[in-house]
């Protein structure tokens, strides 16, 4: 019991003393996950909307695939990205393995299906409400995509948040393609895994607390935005 209490105390000390190593790890985590979510959103929002609005052969299969990919095991994604980026792999010449860029690539692959699949659902629902009006005005599907993404913006924040939750919490993919190299590719989740197995609980606990706080904070901010928007936009 003492040892747990001592670990918590050490963890808080690390946090409040702005320990340089700890904040470096937090900063890299945010950089990797936020960049991955941004890229996934830029691709996934229009992709999901297009799947919702356009009829094409194989659409049903694509929807099933997108939904299934939401549950991709991160270690498998890590393995596949590793194979592509390793020296002998097709993209080996880019020399990206064990870099933050490789971690961003792996997380984009994890987050993209979540954003695209949830966007597809949101936009399909909106389209059933808006279709007749937009067609009447003369707006075809291509014009409707940005319109619906904008009108669904409040709900779509949730899709993007779900993606961020996935990216910031996963450990398998970034561990494999990043390599958990100190000061280079060490992020919160990989550090927690490593430090715990080493028995160095204070750093692991401190990061765990920060990770939880961060998630809470971001979700609280998103909820605030949603409430404000709902009251203002009706």
């Amino acid at each position, binding site marked *: 019991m003492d040892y747990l209490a001592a670990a918590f105390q050490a963890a808080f000390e690390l946090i409040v003393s702005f320990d340089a190593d700890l904040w470096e790890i937090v900063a890299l985590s945010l950089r990797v996950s936020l960049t991955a979510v941004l890229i996934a959103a830029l691709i996934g929002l229009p992709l999901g909307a297009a799947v919702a609005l356009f009829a094409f052969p194989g659409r049903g299969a694509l929807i099933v695939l997108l939904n299934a990919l939401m549950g991709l095991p991160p270690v498998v994604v890590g393995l596949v990205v590793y194979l592509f980026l390793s020296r002998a792999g097709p993209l080996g010449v880019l020399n990206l393995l064990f870099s933050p860029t490789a971690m961003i690539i792996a997380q984009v692959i994890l987050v993209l299906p979540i954003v695209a699949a949830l966007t597809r659902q949101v936009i399909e629902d909106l389209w059933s*409400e*808006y279709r*007749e*009006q*937009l*067609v*009447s*005005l*003369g*707006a*075809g599907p291509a*014009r409707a995509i940005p*319109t619906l993404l*904008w*009108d669904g*913006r409040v709900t779509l924040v949730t899709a993007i948040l779900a993606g961020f939750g996935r990216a910031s919490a996963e450990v398998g993919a970034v561990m494999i393609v990043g390599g958990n190299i100190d000061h280079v590719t060490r992020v919160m989740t990989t550090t927690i895994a490593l430090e715990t197995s080493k028995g160095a609980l204070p750093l692991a606990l401190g990061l765990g607390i920060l990770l939880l706080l961060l998630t809470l904070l971001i979700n609280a901010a998103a909820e605030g935005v949603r409430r404000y928007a709902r009251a*203002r*936009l*009706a």
Partner: protein
Amino acid sequence: MTAEPMRQVASVPRTAGETYRDSILPCRFEGVVYEVGGKRPIDGLDLTLEAGPVTLLIGPNGAGKSLTLRLAHGLIAPTAGQILWQNRKLERAGRGPRRQSMVFQKPVLLRRSVAANLDYALSVHRVQGEERRQRREEALARTGLTAYARQQARTLSGGEQQRLAMARAWALKPQVLFLDEPTASLDPAATAAIEEIVRAMHAEGCKIVMTSHDLGQARRLADEVIFLNRGRVVEHTPASDFFEQPNSRAARDFLAGKLVW
């Protein structure tokens, strides 16, 4: 009751450079069938919508009034038969701006300001710059919404939302305006406001084709009545004739407030 004389307003040119030859009317339905789920809510519809009179589509529930508007406006495609517009190549739905507008029972407004809703419709119609600003301000003024220009559209009252839908239709200067029970969920004052806008658009030469369950409204607005029953045209007559001496038993029953079979 004394019948109003038929108001015959020719479809006038709507925008600079447009001539009478560009009129999309008449619109002809030839043997139109619309089948859904093994049923035929529209079953062999023949009718012609001419430029000019305010046309009211009336009939009992399920007669096919709304479907007729949607077919004419191109929101759904007939299963059989055809719908012909003059210059019809220009009037296919889903192929860019057209010279017909529709106002629905429940207006779908975008989650942005009142003015931005008008700007959106105008931009889809490729109306830019100063002309867009002018048309937007005029439409706001004509529908009494100028003071609400910056308000979020979805926070307007039901009557104001429908006025915005009318303003949006007006700004596009259509030759034909379809209205699907536009006042069904509005109070009398809001209904009067919508009717006033309908009259003003008609006075500017816009053909009005409207469905209504409100016989008082039909009497107030209609120049001619198309009475539908079971997906077919039963009567197509001047409004005064229809309300005073309906030809068919179905129409007599309907006007007498009886169930029509």
